[in-house]
């Protein structure tokens, strides 16, 4: 796989476009949001919720459910869209994003939003929480699986690698770490800010069975996630090569679209147009 992982990305299908249009709806509602960080996540979350996770929208705390922690909490618009799509929350809740009395903040909160397992936003927390959940499932004899979706910038945090040590030590085959490797963090390209390479080798060195995939190729994502766990005695890691801002041509691979605070009608119209 090439470093950027973008060359062979097929055109987005209608479902991926529709989900992105819902992200724009949330951005419009809040007048702000992490655009690039949400757009790169869409296919990862789509495949998780459409094809992989076991859940009951009408019973969000169903004990036998799989747990999905969006550790890169700033990508929450992509999660909110999936939760609305699956019926955890009404679709029009997206219009209230970041508003004073909304349940949908700029980072997801577990106590407020059905289907959100852990409040995230402070980076580098999710994998440890996921390790605890995976150990809890093991202690309780549940076959629930735990998925933790992290950003590439996020895994600069040392706590992620502390958690990786624990997951590897315990051989948590019910835990999957997913990295949204869009190659751009807030300040610029990851290879300049804090280079992660060789990333696949790092996860393998921490005793994960790790694979990489094009994070916008729905069929490839389905295939790789349907093969989980990659090793019956070890945790799995999936490095998803993605494009920051994917689907909004003028925002793709541009660090300035990591977050926008003043999303006005013109910008919203441009984003919708890009998703025609």
């Amino acid at each position, binding site marked *: 796989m090439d470093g950027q992982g973008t060359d062979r990305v097929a055109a987005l299908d209608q479902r991926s476009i529709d989900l992105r249009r819902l992200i724009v709806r949330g951005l419009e509602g809040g007048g702000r949001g992490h655009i690039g960080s949400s757009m790169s996540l869409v296919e990862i979350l789509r495949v998780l919720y459409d094809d992989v996770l076991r859940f009951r929208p009408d019973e969000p705390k169903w004990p036998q459910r799989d747990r999905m922690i969006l550790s890169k909490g700033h990508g929450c618009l992509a999660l909110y869209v999936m939760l609305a799509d699956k019926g955890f929350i009404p679709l029009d809740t997206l219009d209230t994003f970041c508003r004073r009395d909304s349940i949908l903040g700029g980072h997801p909160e577990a106590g407020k939003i059905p289907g959100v397992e*852990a409040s995230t936003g402070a980076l580098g*927390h*999710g994998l*440890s929480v996921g390790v*605890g959940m995976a150990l*809890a499932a093991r202690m*309780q004899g549940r076959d629930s699986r735990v998925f933790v979706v992290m950003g590439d910038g996020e895994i600069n945090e040392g706590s992620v690698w*502390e*958690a990786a040590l624990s997951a590897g030590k315990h051989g948590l085959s019910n835990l999957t770490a997913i990295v949204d490797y869009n190659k751009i963090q807030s300040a610029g390209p990851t290879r300049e800010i804090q280079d992660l390479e060789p990333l696949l080798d790092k996860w393998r060195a921490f005793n994960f069975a790790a694979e990489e995939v094009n994070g916008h190729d729905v069929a490839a994502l389905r295939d790789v996630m349907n093969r989980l766990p990659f090793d019956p005695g070890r945790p799995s890691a999936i490095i998803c090569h993605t494009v920051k801002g994917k689907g909004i041509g003028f925002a793709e691979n541009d660090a300035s679209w990591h977050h926008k605070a003043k999303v006005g009608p013109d910008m919203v119209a441009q984003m919708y147009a890009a998703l025609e």
Partner: protein
Amino acid sequence: MRMTCLNMIHTLAQRDPRPVFIGSDLSPGLLGAMQKEMPKRYYMEGITEANVIGMAAGMAMDGFMPYVNTIATFITRRCYEQVAVDLCLHNLPVRLIGNGGGLVYAPLGPTHLAIEDIAIMRVLPNMAVVAVCDAEEMVRLMDRTLDWPGPLYIRLAKGGDPVVSDARNGFEIGKAIPMRRAKRGGVSLMATGVMTTNCLAAADILERDGIDASVLHVHTVKPLDEGAVLEQAADARLVVTVEEGVAVGGFGSAVTDLLVERLARSMPPMLRLALPDAFPTKYGVQNDQFQVFGLTPEQIAASVRSALT
């Protein structure tokens, strides 16, 4: 006190399915009996404090009650954001047990002195903060932890501390214990942790000098037993708070905040005996440090006498 506390985790785990032990990198064989009896509920995770807190949170989200133990500075300062976000924001029943609270690790220097642990834990929403005064009281505290719904920080003392608590007083988290009573208009000494022991001795010294002093043992700094503190303060000619930690934001600060808000102009005079806003520069043993900071019984009594004149 430490071994009593840790052994209680095993005892609690035998009678309740929720307790789990998580240590960092503690003594070899620590809680070996628990590890042998229930290996799936015993974790020694190495020097990964941030990870350990998140892991405890994840377990608590799925019904467990983790008891996490390591050195007090590292379980508070090192992983403060995990404590704030993973435990307090989610309001999870995780128990943090800090070895060597206050000045216990005097010979090891400022990296190991937990002098601001109470202050920084106290400011976190949902966190309860407890410092008992001896091993027998520790047993009573640990018994109550099974019923406490949110996160809890337990500060451990040196160990082998004189037993001054009394089972007849019972124990409730958040309920201060009057250990010595005084007549109206006496001096009110209020303390937490082993400073209660020093205050009881100071009260004996003061009595010989004809000064009547009560001692309120505020083992739970948060939630503060406002009723007990106000009741003691209302009758006192001097309120004295004594703590083995920094004055900024600590126990005395909590009492002062309450009295200022509730008593306004009828505030009694106050004396706060605590550590200054500085890293300690001396070594020695805990008692040496008490002397450095004016926290021995004799020094407490002398400070009270001086404040009354």
